[in-house]
């Protein structure tokens, strides 16, 4: 029962499972839509669909819901140190996400599965870092920023467009690994209140749990 209660605190309930499943299913749909990114890379099949990369934001943000720790005032006044449990929990969330991404990618026969897994991990790590830096309600910020910058044509040099180019999948994994380490380390210290929120004191805005349905 204790274990279930801990999962509940982190937001892992039936509703979350439904949300998460829906987001992964929507990734399949988004994989079918794409805008031209760089001619003639699409013709040669060198890039994944833009819709797929944008769609991967959804499961990335959905899974970081599990990094929630409950009301900020309780976290900030916790009696025990939370460093170790945060390290373990956030690592488990990232590893679990990579595993689910691998499972989903294995169902996509036409797309490069390796890059899909790498992209999913990279965006999830970005979302986790976002939670650690800005708090739970801004989990979408870094993933959306990354995807916007990499999707707008020619903003990032084509030779290092790690989110879209098949051949760069190993590099994508490298970037994802660095981001993951940064996210886990930051989260271990700040938790879901977020560095910015602590500094500004903005966590008080949502201090009343009754309003936070």
């Amino acid at each position: 029962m204790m274990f279930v209660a801990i999962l509940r605190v982190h937001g892992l309930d039936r509703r979350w499972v439904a949300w998460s499943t829906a987001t992964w299913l929507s990734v399949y749909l988004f994989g079918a839509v794409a805008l031209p990114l760089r001619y003639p890379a699409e013709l040669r099949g060198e890039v994944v669909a833009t819709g797929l990369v944008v769609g991967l934001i959804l499961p990335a943000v959905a899974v970081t819901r599990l990094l929630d720790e409950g009301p900020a005032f309780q976290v900030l006044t916790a009696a025990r140190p939370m460093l170790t449990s945060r390290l373990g929990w956030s690592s488990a969330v990232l590893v679990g996400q990579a595993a689910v991404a691998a499972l989903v990618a294995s169902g996509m026969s036409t797309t490069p599965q390796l890059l899909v897994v790498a992209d999913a991990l990279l965006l999830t790590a970005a979302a986790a870092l976002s939670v650690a830096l800005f708090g739970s309600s801004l989990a979408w910020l870094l993933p959306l920023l990354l995807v916007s910058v990499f999707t707008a044509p020619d903003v990032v040099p084509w030779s290092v467009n790690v989110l879209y180019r098949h051949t760069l999948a190993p590099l994508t994994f490298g970037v994802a690994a660095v981001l993951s380490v940064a996210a886990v380390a930051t989260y271990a210290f700040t938790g879901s209140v977020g560095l910015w929120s602590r500094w500004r004191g903005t966590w008080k805005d949502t201090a009343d749990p009754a309003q936070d349905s």
Partner: protein
Amino acid sequence: MIRPVLVPWRRGWPLVAAVAATQTVVLAWWESWVGSWSATAAALGQALIVTGPVAAAVAAWMARAERSGGTKLLRLASSRASHVPVLRMGYECSVWAGSGMLLGVAVPVIWTARVAEFGNPPPWGWVPLAAGIFGVCLLGVSAGMRLHPHYAAAVAAVGIYGATVIGVLAGDEILAALTPYDTRATFFYATPAWVYLAQGGWFALATAAVAGALHGAGRTAGVLAVAAGMLAAPLLLVGYNDRRPDPAALEFVCATGSRVEVCMPRAKAHMLTDIVDTADEFWKLADGLVSPGARLVDEEARGIPGFDAAFAALGVDTEGAPNVPFPDISAVTRLDRAEFLGSLVGAVVGQPPAGDTVLTIPYPARPGDVLTRWFYDRLGLPLDGSGWPGAPVLDERVVDYSSAADYLEWLSDLSPDDRQRWFATYRDEIEAGTIRFDAFR
């Protein structure tokens, strides 16, 4: 304690997000719109593909934060209809984001105004942009009010991207005119004012209907939906034909350089000086391979109604036509010197006919490789394929020039007159790719 209803520092974020997104997207590919009004308008429309989701996400986040503050209380205690506070938030966000878009739009508009030699800014082109920003803000605010705070912004952004991309993708069919995004080449077309007005109107009304339906204004939402449908109907009817060729844009303008004359459609006339200078540079170097006094005609508009009349008015004499085609500049409004020259070199130095021999890389230089390398060296083009997308790779990784070093030196040592005579003698062989090293003397 509940903070004041609208927390001041948050208000400006949609503006910041909209400026950043618009500028990033539009300025990153300035070569494809600067100087052409229709292309600039299309580029601003396409910027909405990124600006829209970003603005919606910020709106959703703001709405959520304000809801935790006091909007919910306002809604519950409102003496007016309960959707009024929601609409008010949508208005506020769209004013901020719209101002951001305006700032973002100012740079490309001013830039094109300075460069363009043809056309005017489309007077109603801003209507779909403003309506688009208003609509996505309203949808974002609705998502922020209805969904869990952790998901709202992401769902708003990704959902709007998906919906608009489907609209753009289905652009071959009837949905093309419903969105302001035009991914087709737009240089020689003009969009009628009513299309802009209907696009803006239907999108603003449709999103207001969705927001109304979500926030307890069902009857109003119904009326808005019907009105949106009535505005969308003519757009669905015109579909892919929502624009018409502009005969004035297709007229040819010519300029004569020292060795070559260049003719281009008026819509791209601002590139003429650069192109004449670059073509002259090549004509001077390739004297003998190309005839002096030739006329290069840009035929990228071929196939568009009105092109044939403009082409006939030019009075092209195909007898003395140059042996080089006009390089493809159909996607750009700014000359890429390296790509243009590389294309001209590729046209006069032919590839050898494919034989049975399989080349292992690096392969010993062939006569055509020596000639191409000589041209590239003299024109200052990079050999490593970095000059332009799709540039050939001709450096030591691929071609071994050591066996042909003498021929390259011989070619470099020729005086311009000797070179002209040599080029004229072997012109056909060089063009066909059948020239041999025996000729290099």
